[in-house]
């Protein structure tokens, strides 16, 4: 991953600053921040509020917005998008929120969202069509979309190449390796874990709603539990534990492997032979968005070239603007497990299929029981 190390030199200092805040968010502890911060002059017009993961609240992603309005938009932070949705449902209003493609049909059932008029986004023609042209994103959207895609990537395994003794090909078996009991880390989000476990259990995603699938997936996750040191949504904790050698392998997204490589920890983002879980996430707009015009400016900034260069170069997530890829050579993109043609990566893995709320509730309840040891 030498190509990535070359990217790293200039940005090491920013990482730790972000890591701490992100840890707090993972346990749901940072509420709407910016509007409450003292000393920040309130602009005469209201800024758009963006409800997202920690780490996506950095100026580099909103450069065009800052240039136009002088300040960052306001942020609210969630640990996982489902927590965010819960808060919106109980009356919290933000302009934009950051779920993933597979959430759209279920989230729309809440009636809390409005379609986005893509003709108002000047950068939209540069957005790779394969990332948003999906029936459930276009359905009833009045010619627009429900979700403007922003980031894509994989949920896979980051492992220490010096501590983990790989036998044969990279595979999901790494996270089920009994030789390393107590040194495996896992995400706690069911939306990632459940689907990855389905890949490991060999359950086709089309059948994931069946009772047999629930049993098979529960069985592999129960089998894995004694090996797991911690379940957490706090990627900073996982990164630190991987860096110190406390963990030898963990289920992560792209950014963990990239950030650890920046810190010169010998890790690899595995490309499991069974396929990784791949995803496309983006932003949906609240039905009662208080600052819709500014929300459009935020969206336009997010899908701009400069945001894309930062997202890929610093976090290792794929971006949606085709011109943002020009800043990277093929070798770097390959090291980042990205591609100018996202479908190369996305179709090589498995993408989750939208499910009804009842499935979601059953999955999360079952997953919580397994984590607790039942």
């Amino acid at each position: 991953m030498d190509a990535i190390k070359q990217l790293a030199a200039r940005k090491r200092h920013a990482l730790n600053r972000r890591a701490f805040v992100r840890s707090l968010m993972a346990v749901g502890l940072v509420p709407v921040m910016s509007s409450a911060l003292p000393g920040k002059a309130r602009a005469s017009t209201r800024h758009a509020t963006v409800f997202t993961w920690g780490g996506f609240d950095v100026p580099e992603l909103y450069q065009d917005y800052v240039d136009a309005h002088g300040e960052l938009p306001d942020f609210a932070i969630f640990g996982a998008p489902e927590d965010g949705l819960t808060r919106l449902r109980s009356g919290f209003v933000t302009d934009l929120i950051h779920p993933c493609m597979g959430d759209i049909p279920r989230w729309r059932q809440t009636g809390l969202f409005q379609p986005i008029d893509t003709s108002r986004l000047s950068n939209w023609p540069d957005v790779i069509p394969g990332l948003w042209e999906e029936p459930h994103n276009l359905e009833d959207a009045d010619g627009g979309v429900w979700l403007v895609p922003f980031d894509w990537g994989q949920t896979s395994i980051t492992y220490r190449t010096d501590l983990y003794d790989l036998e044969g090909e990279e595979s999901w078996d790494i996270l089920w390796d009994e030789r390393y009991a107590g040194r495996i880390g896992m995400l706690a989000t069911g939306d990632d874990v459940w689907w990855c476990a389905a890949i490991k259990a060999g359950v086709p995603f089309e059948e994931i709603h069946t009772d047999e699938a629930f049993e098979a997936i529960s069985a592999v996750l129960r089998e894995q539990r004694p090996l797991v040191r911690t379940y957490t949504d706090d990627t900073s904790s996982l990164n630190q534990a991987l860096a110190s050698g406390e963990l030898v392998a963990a289920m992560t997204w792209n950014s963990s492997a990239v950030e650890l490589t920046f810190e010169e920890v010998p890790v690899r983002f595995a490309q499991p032979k069974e396929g990784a879980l791949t995803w496309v996430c983006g932003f949906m707009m609240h039905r009662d968005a208080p600052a819709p015009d500014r929300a459009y400016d935020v969206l336009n900034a997010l899908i701009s070239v400069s945001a894309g260069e930062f997202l890929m170069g610093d976090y290792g997530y794929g971006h949606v603007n085709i011109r943002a890829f020009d800043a990277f050579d093929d070798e770097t993109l390959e090291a980042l497990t990205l591609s100018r043609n996202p479908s190369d990566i996305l179709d090589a893995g498995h993408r989750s299929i939208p499910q009804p709320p009842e499935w979601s509730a059953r999955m999360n309840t079952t997953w919580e029981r397994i984590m607790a040891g039942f």
Partner: protein
Amino acid sequence: MRMAVTTPNETALAAGRGQSAPRWLLARHEGLRGLILLAPALVILGITVIVPFAMMGAMSFWTQVGFDYADDWSLRNYIEIASEPIYSTLLLRSLGMAMAATLLTVVLVYPMAYFLAFHVHRNKLLWLIIITLPFWTSYLLRVFAWRVVLGFEGVINTGLMEIGLIAEPLKFLLYSRTAVVITLAHAWAAFALLPIYVSLEKIDRSVLEASADLGEGPVMRFFRVILPLSMPGVIAGTFLMFIPTVGDYVTAALVGGPDARMIGNLIQLQFGTINNWPMGAALAITMILAITVVGLMFLGLMLALKRWAR
């Protein structure tokens, strides 16, 4: 306030001389005066505690259907809590961990409070401030600090490895119930310390002299005089610490591993990812009832001890 110092007779006369009826009423009925003084607190308590609590109680009998609730008034949630082992296990574990943390804290802070009450004579305020200084930082920072202390490359592990006592870092220190109990014990210590200190401070020093005059040694004096007299503070401190720690979820989320999940984590998930608010409400009510039962048992034990000691 003038009312308080006038005698009933004077006021009655004043009323007779044409004072307005409300003033006369106020003067005559002490209970009414009390109610009026309590009114602001009662209104706030009603709005912020009693009403939400009633709503939660009502919701616990509902059922989650997709993104909506069905108010079908069933006992389904409670039956599930009673029949599925995960709920009782997590509840008992949380009670156990909170008890362990409370016991640890009371045992650790009692000597501190004792020293402060009996052996510090000058600059007491300064001492109090110094002792409570760690509690001026955010609760979260204290939890994170413990991660630094207990972690794989933490102060304890690297220290022990440096001396050569251990070859590999101790894994049970972080991501375990031990870690949660230690962190809770430290993070909530001030809540136990202050009531104990106050009750020790209030002990009449002449009682201690009397016990010495009657021939008690220092040890017996502690057990027969000081400890019984400071029990109100110990009991208050125990409750102040035990009740909130049972439902704590942040500490378990940050320093607890898979086996240290507490009932608070489960309740938080019901209101978040799992998205089953009625179940969350039922769990919260169950937790409150369990805390009440344990609290009453503790009080009963203390009363029995008191009777036995006589």
